[in-house]
């Protein structure tokens, strides 16, 4: 097997071993294997009934609200509009929080206020649209709404606090 085919094959190892394990379990009547398979199908169904639709929505969002357009509204004196812009911008992103740090640097370079940089980080961490979708799917609309509505004002307050605290402390974001 060449290195390339191995790289292509690698992501499917778990899946393939699981299929073999499950077939084996049913063949030989291995009960733990059957139980694991049953709990897998349960969670598989739980996922597959909403994930494809979630990505239709996310894809449409991506073409209708391009990130570049929103970045225009982020400046030092952008006021409420700026807060809205960073929150929307953060919601359109994907990935873990450490992926947001380079973006924070770009925002800083573009002249975003301290407040907006931290509001961005807050919104990035917990209001990303794809993640909200998965959250609704798994934990329900009620939980997601409650968590979001509680979190949002706290993030904004945190942004104001950081700006007040760091005002004369020559805050900067480094590029690495």
């Amino acid at each position: 097997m060449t290195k390339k085919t191995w790289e292509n094959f690698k992501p499917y190892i778990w899946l393939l071993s699981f299929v073999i394990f499950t077939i084996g379990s049913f063949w030989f009547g291995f009960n733990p294997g059957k139980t694991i398979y049953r709990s897998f199908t349960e969670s598989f169904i739980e996922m597959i009934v909403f994930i494809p639709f979630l990505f239709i929505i996310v894809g449409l969002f991506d073409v209708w609200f391009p990130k570049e357009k929103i970045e225009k509204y982020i400046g030092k004196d952008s006021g409420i509009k700026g807060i809205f812009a960073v929150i929307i911008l953060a919601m359109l992103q994907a990935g873990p929080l450490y992926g947001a740090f380079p973006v924070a640097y770009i925002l800083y370079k573009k002249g975003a206020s301290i407040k907006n940089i931290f509001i961005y980080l807050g919104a990035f961490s917990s209001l990303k649209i794809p993640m909200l979708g998965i959250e609704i799917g798994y934990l329900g609309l009620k939980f997601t709404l409650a968590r979001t509505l509680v979190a949002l004002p706290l993030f904004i307050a945190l942004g104001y606090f950081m700006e007040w605290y760091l005002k004369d402390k020559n805050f900067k974001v480094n590029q690495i």
Partner: protein
Amino acid sequence: MNNALIFISFSVFTSLVSFLLDRQKTILGFKKGLKMFQNIIVPFLNILILVSLLLFIIPPQLIVKYLGAGSGAVGFAIAAAVGSITLIPGFISYPIASNLLKQGASYSTVAVFMTTLMMVGVVTLPLEIKYFGRRVAVLRNLLNLAVAIIIGLLIGIIL
């Protein structure tokens, strides 16, 4: 099932509106969505396999004991600590959180677990320090931990 209905109706509705406004853009959006779905589906299946295995290995009584309905402040603290320290990507943590709820964990425990996972990163702190400096990075994490605890408590009151 209820959730699936929300997603299906919302995606059908947005697709229709989008299609009426701009056919080309809609098709482009579908393609983008499909691409993202393709990127996520195999890792997602792997996670589901892993969670099914873990659920079999870790006895439910253990989860209930430490994070379940009767675990109170201790369960809440465990959830906050585990969420702060570990680095679990979102789409992995939601199936776990959903299982915790099914095993009897309270909404507020699950909320503090999810929020600390998202907002507090002990593992990534060295990286964060490089960007923001030690003082700001540590302060951000501490404040976010406080916010996560407040969110957890409020969710417990609301739901």
